């Protein structure tokens, strides 16, 4: 088995990358504007629904049910997709998934495939694998296209090119497109992308997508998007290959009533995203005549085996946690050195990588101030602080011994495991003492030391961040 590409080869450990990012004032300004804008919009989109908390509870439980009965639901999905003319493939890891997609694309005579933005295919490094096999993968989401043409890395789950401003984007397009945009007006840039991609959409034979949800009972696959590039890929080519993580299921059609409310409002802060496509197998005369579904493990079953860490598999990739995270806001997504940045990246990437010797992955659970804002916005109530401290304890354990940090992390994990304990600890101001001994957080042991060495982390203020957040931004 090869290396899991969920973390980027050669990326520095988080504290080091963060140090570089912090020096980039342009990046910080872009990020601050982006995160505050989305954050404010999200708050009002959420406030519109009086039953938001009930929806979150339902979303959490539906996903827990999926994780608790994953084998049953996967088999049901396989059966229903097959019954409707689709073909289901199973992939243990990135290498296997990439091989399946490459073989399918070759079989259908494609030298180019069009792609809908997908975290799962980014996670397995599919584009690179196809390229190595002589097949060009064309990203069709505007932001992904900007990242691809700029030979860059994504920096946000939802808006991967958020670190780029319009002038930079125009430069990239001018260099890479035959019909370059005249100005750097976003309208003009979007138009250039439209022209650039339209021919490809109309002639592509094979498309590759991810999936936001798959309904076990019916075999229906759901893709949520804004630009229409998703619809183009999902309906025009003859062959559609969808790669999805095995946790992306919901048991029944009815469950979508929960997620089609939680996702858009948490993600783009809209009541509904412009386009949602749902298809089940193949429909003669309408859309692709061949449909392949690749079910991807790639570290998910290992994550499932961790009682505390498994909640990360509830994630619906809305990116709300990124936009509220004070650490992300300052460092940007690339510092995480992983396909999954921000708070969710800090707990998901190291678990998917599942490699204790990967120092960069091991540094990610430290990429957080443990303020708890991510937990409060998460539509499926993933207790990210709890998972972070749990994973930190694991990192420390892996290095051996019951040193003071291991004890502190174990204690902190116990506090985070229960929101009431957490709030009580914060009120008592005891959290920082718990984590560091008394006084300000001057130095943390490795790898936290690399973080604290570059800045003075203050001890917790009188008002907890959670309370402050509620008062100011909640």
């Amino acid at each position, binding site marked *: 088995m090869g290396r899991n590409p969920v973390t980027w080869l050669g990326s520095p450990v988080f504290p080091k990358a963060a140090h570089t990012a912090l020096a980039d004032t342009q990046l910080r300004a872009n990020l601050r*504007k982006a995160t505050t804008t989305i954050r404010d919009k999200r708050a009002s989109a959420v406030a519109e629904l009086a*039953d938001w908390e*009930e*929806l979150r*509870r*339902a979303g959490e*439980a*539906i996903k827990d*049910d999926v994780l*608790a*009965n994953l*084998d049953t639901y*996967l*088999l049901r999905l396989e059966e229903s997709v097959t019954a409707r003319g689709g073909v289901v493939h199973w992939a*243990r890891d990135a290498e*296997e998934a990439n091989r399946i997609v490459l073989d399918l694309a070759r079989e259908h005579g494609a030298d180019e495939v069009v792609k809908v933005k997908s975290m799962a295919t980014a996670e397995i490094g599919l584009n690179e694998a196809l390229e190595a096999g002589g097949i060009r993968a064309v990203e069709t989401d*505007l*932001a992904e296209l900007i990242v691809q043409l700029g030979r860059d890395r994504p920096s946000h789950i939802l*808006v991967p*090119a958020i670190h780029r401003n*319009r002038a930079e984007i125009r430069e990239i397009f001018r260099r890479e497109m035959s019909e370059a945009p005249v100005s750097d007006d*976003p309208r003009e*840039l*979007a138009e250039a*992308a439209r022209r650039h*991609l*339209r021919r490809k*959409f*109309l002639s592509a034979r094979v498309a590759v997508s991810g999936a936001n949800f798959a309904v076990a009972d*019916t075999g*229906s696959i759901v893709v949520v998007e*804004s*630009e*229409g*590039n998703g*619809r*183009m890929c999902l*309906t*025009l080519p003859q062959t559609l290959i969808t790669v999805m993580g095995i946790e992306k299921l919901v048991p029944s*059609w*009815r469950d979508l*009533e929960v997620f089609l409310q939680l996702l*858009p409002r948490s993600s783009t802060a*809209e*009541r*509904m*995203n412009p386009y*949602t*496509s*749902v*298809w*089940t197998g193949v*429909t003669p005369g*309408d*859309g692709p005549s061949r449909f392949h579904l690749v*079910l991807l*493990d790639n570290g998910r*079953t290992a994550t*499932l*085996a961790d009682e505390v860490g498994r909640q990360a598999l509830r994630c619906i990739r809305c990116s709300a946690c990124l936009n509220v995270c004070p650490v992300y806001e300052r460092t940007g997504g690339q510092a995480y050195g992983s396909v999954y940045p921000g708070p969710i990246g800090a707990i998901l990437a190291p678990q998917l990588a599942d490699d204790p010797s990967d120092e960069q992955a091991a540094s990610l659970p430290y990429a957080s101030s443990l303020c708890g804002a991510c937990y409060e916005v998460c539509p499926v109530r993933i207790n990210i602080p709890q998972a972070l401290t749990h994973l930190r304890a694991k990192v420390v354990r892996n290095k051996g011994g019951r040193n003071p940090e291991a004890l502190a992390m174990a204690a902190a994990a116990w506090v985070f495991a229960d929101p009431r304990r957490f709030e009580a600890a914060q009120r008592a101001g005891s959290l920082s003492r718990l984590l560091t001994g008394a006084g300000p957080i001057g130095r943390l042991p490795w790898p936290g030391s690399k973080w604290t060495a570059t800045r003075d982390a203050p001890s917790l203020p009188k008002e907890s961040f959670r309370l402050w957040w509620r008062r100011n931004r909640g």
Partner: protein
Amino acid sequence: MGSAREEILARIRAAGAARPVTVPREYRRERRVADPVALFAERIADYRAVVRSGPVELIGECLGARGVRTMVVPADVPAHWRVSGVRWLVDDDPPLELSVVDGVDGVLTGCAVAIAETGTIVLDAGQAQGRRLLSLVPDYHLCVVRTDQIEVTVAQALSRLDPLRPLTFISGPSATSDIELDRVEGVHGPRTLEVLIVDG
């Protein structure tokens, strides 16, 4: 080494996550509002769709106002929707070539269900809707929504839909906010969505 399928299933079983879970469904599935039609009109207009209401004959006015010449329609739209003054291309059997659909000024369809709370129309390839690409490739989409097709909540709308049909949920025209978070309408789908609400 066994098959990937067997191995993944075995790993899941070995992970020891199995336990019963009850899903709390205390959220509201239905909601009453005084005027669902007005709410739908307001919400879809929020997404910069052009909204009109009135008799179906307004189709002529919608098209005239845009100077539209050639429109594509699914074969089963009501005959009187095909008002005079424009050239109608009918997507029948055999279906129109993709290049033809790419060359028209717009498309006229009905819908299956609409959602007032979110300002969404849903097409299910049923009556008056045709294949999915018809409402995607042309730059202008005129959609006729009957008032009896409008549901208030997402849950109410989903319960009216058949998941085995290909479904497209549309909330406003295609849009992107990828460049400095400035919203731009019309990236790859139709740049203009016009909704005509008719009594029914």
